[in-house]
Structure formats: structure tokens, C-alpha cells
């Protein structure tokens, strides 16, 4: 499978022999500093700072309404935080449009699957390559010359992704008809087609059965391992979070209450209180 996974030319994140350095010592890919976001009187995020380092799997956890999805929405430009800065690949920005974030290499999936329901699996994943295509559309219209070459090249990449996610059988099916678990997989495929440097996954395993969760976990690890993609994921299944992630950020009511390795976070009293509730 390793050679079909050569989706881009980047070096794999880790080899079999060389143990990668611990996440804390790697280069910072994204840093969030003092970000605050509110909707009218509702403070969704209050002064949160953390960083995501190259090649790690970073989990964002917290009880419902903690501001996790809002955080992802700030990172990929759906929301504009009122305060604070977000620095991606050394570039700091206050306001960024979602397509600019996509252009810089941030891909994502959504909590409630957001696919192009009327389109086939293939077209959905091809849509993920929009930014990689640049030929003039008149060429496309003619289906000739350089555009045809390009289309073929992109089709090959898409086929690699389809093989990787093991969804060959549903290539031509309109995604609206697929079961939920497969829709989530197609959505991951579309995000992968962007060849993102940072992949944001919003509850990739919500609503899945154990088997589907195991499959999805394997895909996430493989993407991280073999493509070297940095991943930030929101997940409620603690077993999955503890197994997959290098480091964990814990939010509660829009405030960061813990940040560290899975073991550190698990032992943190604030986290235990937030999850179990505590008498004040």
C-alpha cells in the first residue's frame, strides 16, 4: 500500500526505524494566540492559546459547547475572531477567507457531513482538487490538449485516494445515497485531495459503530504517518483520542483548561472536574 500512497512528494513523516522526535520539540505549524470569539453576548472562545506542531496529531476535546468547532472555524476562516491572532506557517493573520485558508493548505471535514450530495464520490473528491487545477476553462470545454492531460493527472491522484480509503465500489454513486459512515469517508477523501498540510477533522467518528471507528482511526494514523499530514481533530470518544493523539488541548466553556500529552491531560484535576462536574 505504501507506493499507492505517494500522493505527494513530501517525505513521509516518520520512517519505520527512526523514531520521530516528541511532538513538543518539533517545528510549530500553527499557533493560536489569545483568540477570543463571541456571538453577541455569548462568549464562545475566551483568550485561548495553543500551538500545533508539524507532523503531530493534535486532539481538541471538551464537553459540548466548549467552543471546539468554533475554534476550527476560526482556523479555517469561517469565523473571524474578535481578538487574538492565528499564525500558520509563520504568517500571521486576523481575517482570512475560507478559500484563502484552503489555498494555504488547510483542509477540513465537518461535524455534520458537508458533501456535494447530488454528485458522485468521484466528483466530490475531484472537487477537492479545485485549487490544484489551473488550466484555462476553455481548454476544459474542449476536453483537449493540456487540460485533458491535467484532468488525467488529477484523476490518477483521486484514484489513489479512492484506493487508500477503500471506496472503489461507490465511485459512481451519488453520495447522498451512501450510509453515514461511508459519507464520512468520502468527506475525508475530499479533504485529502487538497493535499493539505494541516487537516482539521471535526468529530470524524461521530455516529459510527466500533468497526467503522477502527477503520477511520486507521485511516487517520496512516494519513499522518505516511503522508506526513499534520492533523487536528475534535473527538468525543476518549479511547480514540488517547490512542491517536500526540497532544491534547482541553476546552471548557470557551476557556483552555489543559494542554499536554494524553496521560498528562487524563490526570489533570480541571479536566476531570469539567467532564464529571463538580460542586462549587
Amino acid at each position, binding site marked *: 500500500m505504501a507506493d499507492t500512497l505517494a500522493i505527494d512528494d513530501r517525505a513521509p513523516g516518520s520512517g519505520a526505524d527512526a523514531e520521530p522526535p516528541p511532538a513538543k520539540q518539533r517545528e510549530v505549524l500553527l499557533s493560536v494566540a489569545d483568540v477570543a470569539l463571541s456571538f453577541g453576548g455569548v462568549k464562545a472562545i475566551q483568550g485561548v492559546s495553543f500551538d500545533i506542531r508539524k507532523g503531530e496529531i493534535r486532539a481538541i476535546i471538551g464537553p459540548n459547547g466548549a467552543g471546539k468547532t468554533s475554534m476550527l472555524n476560526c482556523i*479555517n476562516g*469561517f469565523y473571524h475572531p474578535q481578538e487574538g491572532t492565528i499564525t500558520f506557517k509563520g504568517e500571521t493573520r486576523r481575517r482570512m*477567507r*475560507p*478559500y484563502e485558508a*484552503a*489555498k494555504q493548505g488547510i*483542509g*477540513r471535514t*465537518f461535524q455534520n457531513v*458537508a*458533501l*456535494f*450530495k*447530488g*454528485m458522485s464520490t468521484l*466528483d466530490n473528491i*475531484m*472537487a*477537492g482538487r*479545485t*485549487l490544484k*487545477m489551473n*488550466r484555462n*476553462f476553455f481548454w*476544459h*470545454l474542449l*476536453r483537449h490538449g493540456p487540460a485533458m492531460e491535467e484532468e488525467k493527472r488529477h484523476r490518477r491522484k483521486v484514484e489513489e485516494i479512492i484506493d487508500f480509503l477503500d471506496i472503489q465500489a461507490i465511485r459512481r454513486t451519488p453520495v*447522498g*445515497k451512501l*450510509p*453515514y459512515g461511508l459519507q464520512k469517508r468520502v468527506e475525508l477523501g*475530499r*479533504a485529502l*485531495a*487538497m493535499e493539505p498540510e494541516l487537516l482539521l477533522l471535526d468529530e470524524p467518528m461521530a455516529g459510527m459503530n466500533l468497526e467503522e471507528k477502527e477503520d477511520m482511526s486507521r485511516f487517520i494514523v496512516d494519513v499522518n504517518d505516511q503522508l506526513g499530514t499534520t492533523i487536528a481533530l475534535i473527538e468525543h470518544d476518549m479511547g480514540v483520542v488517547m490512542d491517536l493523539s500526540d497532544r491534547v488541548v482541553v476546552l471548557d466553556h470557551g476557556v483552555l483548561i489543559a494542554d499536554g500529552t494524553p496521560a498528562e491531560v487524563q490526570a489533570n484535576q480541571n479536566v476531570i472536574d469539567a467532564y464529571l462536574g463538580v460542586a462549587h
Partner: protein
Amino acid sequence: MDLLIQTVWEGLVAGVLYALIALGFVLIFKASSVFNFAQGIMVVFSALTLVGTYEALARNGLTGFPGAMLALVITLGVMYLLAVAIERIVLRPLVNQPDIILFMATFGLTYLLIGIGEAIFGGATKTMITSQLGLPTGSTSFVLPGMGPGGREGFVLIQHLDIAAAVIATVMICALAAFFQYTRVGRALRAVADSHKAALSVGISLNHIWIVVWFTAGIVALVTGIMWGARSDVSFALQIIALKALPVLILGGFTSIPGAIVGGLIIGIGEKMGELYLAPMLLGAMGKGVESWLAYFIALGFLMFRPQGLFGDKIIERI
């Protein structure tokens, strides 16, 4: 028999033109799920701009074909600017609002365009610059032996303009279908139609796509305006032809380009046939003006038995 052929031909031409109008709606509906009430006035506005620009050029000595072509290019420019303005002023501030709000906004747009059109070009009826654009005029009559009443010679009269209209509309429809199906922008358009946030997340710029869509709808409106204008006149009354697109859309489905074509042909031919065969059978007032209500009657039937239209997407969602 000759009467039947004549009727079918006229129905066919009317149908292709209905399809063209419907296509303008489908384009915008697909990309933004907005029913663009302003499509009818865009037809009038573009036709008025074309004729008005030509008149202005003619006053400065540029007449005939070159003048008409220049006017055409200028009109295309105006339609592009209109698309940009609509995106900036109407759509961008209303992003993520419910569809009904955008629908109402297109009402506003309609009256705005009527106002601007009247202010610039006046309310008087204008004549389409048909011959200057190089469109054929005149007609040919074909003799069909043995097809007339009682086995006599039959005649079919075909307007050259109608042939041109049918050909141009067909080419236009094919080009648009190819554009949607095979280009990167076309795929992006379909993606935007399905989910805005997902389209944004893969790096499709909504603003860009909306301009493309509205400009394309503007081009379709211009072609429609030229063709309809050449068959009647260019006046604000022309905008009611947009209402004829409604039964076409119900028949064909709001999201389907082939649907718009087939729907247009069924309505066009149905209307003419109804006038020929149905009208004599109906008594008194019912028989009059069959052409004006038959289309809606057919559409009503479709709504009862196949609400998504012939080709519309029946979106099957798991819940």
C-alpha cells in the same frame, strides 16, 4: 397535415425559446438555490441596452453590422458589470440568509432594473436591430404535395429568423451543458449548488462563482432578448415571458438543464397544439386563449404526480 407540420414547427421554435429562458433560471437556481425573479427583466434590460447602445452609436455615424457588433460587445460588458454589482451589493451581504430572503432580493432587483432601464432608455417600445446583427429575415414557403386539406397541395411557411433562433438556442444550450459537465468551473458550480460551506472548505470562492453564474445568466438573457425582441418588439411587456418559464421549470425540474430543454419543447408544442385542436372543442370563453393557460394547466398536473419534474433531482437523504 400541412397545418399540423406548421403548428409543430412553431411550437418547436417557441419551445426552444422557452427553454432558453428557463435555462437562465436553472443556472442561478443550481448555483445558489435562488429562484431569480429578475431573470425576466434581465432579458428586457439586456435587449434594451443592446438597442439603446446601437441607437447611440448610430447617431454618431456607426451603423450597420459593425455598429451592431460593437453594441453587442458593450452590452456583454454591461451584463458583466451587472453580475459583479449584483454579487457585491445583493448577494454578498445576504450570504447564509434563508433562500426566501434572496428570493425577495431578486424582486427588489427587478424593480431596480425596471427603474434604471426606464431612466436610461425611456419607456417607449423599441425595435430589435435584427438585420443589423446579421440575423436573417424573410421566409420560405414549402409546397407539400398531397398534404393540404382534401389531398390538395399543402403549404408550410417557415420564417428564417425562427430557424436562426432554433439553431442559436440549440448551440447555446449544448455549450452550457458542456460547460457544466466538463469544466473545472462547471464542477465548482455544481459543488456550490450542493453545499456552500463544503465548497468554501475546498477552496472554491463563492464570490467568483456567483459572478460567473450571474454573468452566464446575463448572456442567456441577452440571447433570449434578441430572439424574442426580433419576433415581437423590445418593451417592458416582454418580461412576462419569464412567467412562461415557470411551467417549463415545473415540468423539467428546477435543477436540470436537459429538463429545461425538454420542458420547453413540451410546453411550446403543447401550447400550439392545444390552440389548434383543443380550442375548437372547448365552448365559449374556455376555448379562447388556450395558449395562455394551457402551460400552467400542464404544470399543475405535473405538480400533482411528479413534483420534482421530469428530470429534477429527487434528493434522497438519509435521516
